[in-house]
């Protein structure tokens, strides 16, 4: 266990706890607060994965723009009535919980069974018995993944920009498509929310 491992464990625990709080607290303002707080450990994990630019963008867009919008709307409409309402029928909640748990278990199975750390083209399902016997994600990976390079240069703005705007194989079209989408969304939001145009 080195520094990054400790960081990952702490951030993961924090993120999970805050996410659980977000979906479980009654008050929408508290939920917004815990969600904002959840974005920070996730951004820290991005940072540890040496995606520096994305970590900052995560804080800037999610915490700084999207959640500000949420907070603003919540405070503006101030839905106090919600706190008195009792939650949905217990059997439905149980079904949802079962669904979520099943999804998680399926993903866990997939992650632990297939040797992701190897070259994915040649990855074959590991013998199921072995993965079960040795128990858990750790043992199923034959060789530990090469640790992410933490020199701060990998996910920097330069690399992302090069990939994004490369003349031949870049994502220029997709970029433009997304920008048109955002423009449409902005205009649409104004049209929807404004009382009189």
């Amino acid at each position, binding site marked *: 266990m080195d520094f990054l491992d400790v960081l990952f464990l702490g951030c993961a625990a924090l993120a999970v706890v805050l996410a659980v709080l977000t979906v479980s607290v009654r008050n929408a303002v508290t939920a917004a607060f815990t969600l904002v707080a959840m974005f920070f450990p996730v951004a820290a994990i991005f940072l540890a994965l040496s995606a520096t630019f994305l970590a900052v963008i995560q804080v800037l867009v999610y915490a700084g723009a999207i959640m500000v919008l949420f*907070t603003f709307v919540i405070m503006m409409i101030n839905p106090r009535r919600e706190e008195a309402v009792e939650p949905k029928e217990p059997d439905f909640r149980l079904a949802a919980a079962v669904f979520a748990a099943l999804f998680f278990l399926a993903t866990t199975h997939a992650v632990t069974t297939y040797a992701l750390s190897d070259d994915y083209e040649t990855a074959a399902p590991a013998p199921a018995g072995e993965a079960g016997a040795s128990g858990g994600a750790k043992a199923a990976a034959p060789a530990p993944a090469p640790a992410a390079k933490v020199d701060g240069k990998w996910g920097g703005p*330069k690399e992302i920009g090069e990939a994004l705007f490369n003349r031949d194989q870049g994502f220029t079209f997709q970029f433009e498509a997304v920008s048109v989408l955002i423009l449409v969304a902005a205009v649409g939001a104004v049209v929807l929310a404004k009382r009189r145009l």
Partner: protein
Amino acid sequence: MIMACAGALLLRLPGTGEGSLWWAWTLLWAFALFNVLMVTAGLLVYAERKVCARIQNRIGPNRVGPAGILQWIADAVKLFLKEDIVPDHVNRFFYIVGPFMAFFPGMVVFGVMPFGTANTADPGAAFALASLDVGLVFVVALTSIAVYGVAYGGWASNNKFSLLGGLRSSAQLISYEIPMGLALISLIMSAGSLSLPEIVTQQQGTFLGFLPNWYCFHQPVAFLIFWVCAFAEGNRLPFDLPEAEPELVGGYHTEYSSMKFGMFFLGEYAALASMAAFVVTLFLGGWALPYGVEAMLTPGWQTAAATVGCFLVKWALLLFVYLWVRWTLPRFRYDQLMRLGWKGLLPLALANIFVTGVLAVR
């Protein structure tokens, strides 16, 4: 404090390889910066009172210490000794967390600010807690988080005036963030970098033969927009509607007292100081000495002293202009404020990006 240290540790992650004691150094640096900033904020309060007094033809604080220079300590002690009232009707958790959220971003921004260098040719030699290659976006991200302190503080007070005050000022902050970001985009287009030390290094030398090579001369419109927005973001006059006492019953901090009010107050001054440092770094050359003075200095402590001094002088002058403006201009009305932001600055910033794109792209 603890949060600031944790933030500093995270910022320095890219430097993990520098040796086993890097975290101790980081904590020491963070602690020193924190204290410097607190003292700066305190001195700023004192300077504000003095400048205000001068402009209004008064003397200002002159009892505590020589020329009243210790007045800010007395103010702080007074705030701390006052009774800390938590009204019954507030939401306790957010009422207490609010001031901290307002206080935190202004502090952490300083972690990426390059305030000097030992070698003017090498951006890597800049004195900064963390030389992030995304430093500029980092600062913008933290500034955009400062809204929460205001919004939650106002909401938690559970008082319609505070709620309206909080909403009003968060609307103001959101509105002025947009032209601010767009002004920064045109700056980024001419700088070609998001790293603050890199941007400062580019601003050495001369522009057009006689001007210092600062980005405020390359991008005058962006500089103007950014600076106006910096006033609005810092809740300074002429944009200080969040705390317009006479006509709007204060604002988000109406229900706050004692140390929690002090946190809002100090946080505002810390944000002001860091915003001014940001303007200096981006548009006024940061530590870059004008007219090639750096060539006369030997790299090492001479350069270090000169550049740090240069940064401090620019910073102090800019802060003085802030105070000067505050005590000279009247306050905007709220609809005028919104109209200026959305119908004045936003189109101007967009046009500026367009012009920059045509003229300056390399």
